[in-house]
């Protein structure tokens, strides 16, 4: 039987911890089925086999932190029909975007024995800061079911079921008791996009915003409430400036505190 024409999938990495592409390998129950539906054409973490582009779907992990990254992502874009960025690094610059708030050149000069070896930008930025992106999948790391959903939707020509609303809705759906109301715990849930599976509130801690800002978040109102609950300005700033520090809404809100 001739092999069906399967869409070509490529997985790319920029500055990141690998966790999001590892999520792909963590789809233990679905991985083999997935490879029957897509052709893995470029995925260094999984295979040394490399097929040339263009690729039907590219998953891009990681943020842009070097001049060379900028060139590379443009080439990836050129080679990809659909470009999906996965994870907080790719969609908002990731944890390493915390450098954006400090003087990186200073660091390197003072710290590395040979600063001339180090070639880096002063900022860590999202992929969509550099090339058009078709879909941004949030999370630090992404949720594997959401990742499968996006691939599945792309394969089946439907809209991915990835809500942009608050984490609170997901907490309520799962019947999780609100940490903020019931215990006074600081929580970014009301301004964070749902999708993690109610992880932190389910483990008795406040949401730390690893899925980034929800649609039209009212960060100022939440920050005011966090203040009432006893969070210091610095504490509020840190909350917003962590895993999605360079997303517009969180960056701006964090800048207003501390």
């Amino acid at each position, binding site marked *: 039987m001739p092999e069906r024409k399967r869409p070509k999938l490529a997985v790319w990495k920029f500055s990141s911890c690998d966790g999001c592409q590892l999520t792909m390998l963590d789809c233990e129950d679905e991985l083999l089925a997935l490879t*029957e539906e897509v052709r893995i054409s470029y995925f260094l973490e999984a295979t040394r086999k490399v097929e040339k582009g263009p690729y039907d779907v590219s998953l891009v992990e990681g943020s842009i932190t070097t001049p060379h990254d900028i060139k590379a992502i443009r080439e990836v874009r050129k080679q990809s029909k659909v470009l999906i960025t996965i994870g907080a690094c790719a969609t908002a610059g990731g944890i390493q975007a915390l450098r954006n708030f400090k003087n990186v050149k200073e660091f390197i000069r003072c710290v590395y024995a040979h600063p001339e070896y180090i070639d880096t930008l002063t900022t860590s930025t999202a992929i969509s800061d550099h090339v058009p992106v078709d879909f941004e999948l949030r999370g630090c790391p992404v949720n594997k079911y959401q990742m499968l959903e996006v691939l599945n939707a792309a394969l089946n020509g439907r809209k991915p079921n990835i809500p942009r609303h608050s984490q609170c809705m997901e907490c309520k759906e799962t019947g999780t008791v609100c940490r903020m109301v019931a215990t006074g715990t600081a929580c970014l849930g009301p301004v964070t996009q749902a999708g993690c599976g109610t992880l932190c509130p389910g483990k008795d801690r406040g949401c730390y915003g690893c899925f980034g800002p929800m649609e039209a978040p009212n960060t100022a109102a939440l920050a005011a409430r966090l203040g009432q609950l006893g969070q210091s300005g610095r504490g509020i700033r840190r909350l917003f400036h962590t895993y999605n520090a360079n997303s517009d809404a969180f960056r701006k809100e964090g800048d207003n505190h501390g």
Partner: protein
Amino acid sequence: MAQPNSKSTTPYLLDMDGLAALISALRRQGRQIVGPRLADDAVIYDDIETAADLPAGWGSEQAGGHYRLKRRDDNAVFGYGLAPQGWKRQLYPPRQKLFAARRQAGGFTVEPPPPPAPPLALIGVRACELAAIARQAKVFGDRAFADPGYQTRLSSAFIVAVQCAEAQATCFCASMGTGPEVTAGFDIKLTEVFVQKHHGFVAEAGSAQGAKLLKALKAPAAGPAEIKAAGVAVKNAARQNKHLDAEAARNLVAHPDHPRWDKVAERCLSCGNCTMVCPTCFCTTVEDVTDLKGDNAERWRKWDSCFTMDFSYIHGGAVRTETRSRYRQWITHKLSTWVDQFGEQGCVGCGRCVTWCPVGIDITEEAAAITGQERI
């Protein structure tokens, strides 16, 4: 669901063992028993095994954006106020499969979901919650199109109602005319009483099957002291500080451009908590899912909220892009246009939206401000 009971019966008096026997009897009927239990720093409605799972001695303190469990000075099992979420979870679950479809040569077949099973027994339903159940029953059945799932779950459920003995700071059922007294819509009604340190439950049947069950428990009749104590409990619960002028609130729709909408939008997180905890909010969306091959598809119904952007999406964009419009939609529907649609208000005064709003926005204050009963 309770059927009308023509004859009034004399109240029985159950003790904790009697209550346990009642729960066991319901379990023997093959029912899934749902009642209050302690979990995650709150009393929630969840599956319970026995009466020992009930939150004996636990109460709660509730205010705008604030809930704390607190120890009671007695061992009342129904003294916890209201749980974070009502019985909507059981009667209209957050995720429901609508159908499954399978691709076949030249087309596809559609399989409706299996009927809900097993029947429920709901332990500890308050008056406001009975009202909420009734309101959803109208939404899901009082018109040309019914939701068979809701109707089946409700009509097969056994409802053990419980009288409130005290009100939370967020309760305003009295002003909505939905409580605190449980008057109808139950199979068995319990009022928790302490008479000379004896902990008991005055139990009345509200349906034939309730009466049958109570009779089978062979409990003694409640004495005058217990009946009197039950009356006092209801009176206590009726003392509520929060009020909503339901009549005036009808008029909310007349103020679509009131500056208060902007003020509340400054605070509102549009997180959707109020709608999710509201026992009458019924909005849902659907999700189509497929297997990777695309041979099997399913549609699921999920709770939705008018606070999400997608809620009002028509091709091109969302109709209600601003928080003010979304908040306005929620509260005007709840208190005003619901009456046009169903002949009564959508709010039952349970106060959950006040307690569980992370920033403590209070529906009664907003309604009063916009209808001009209070200074802005």
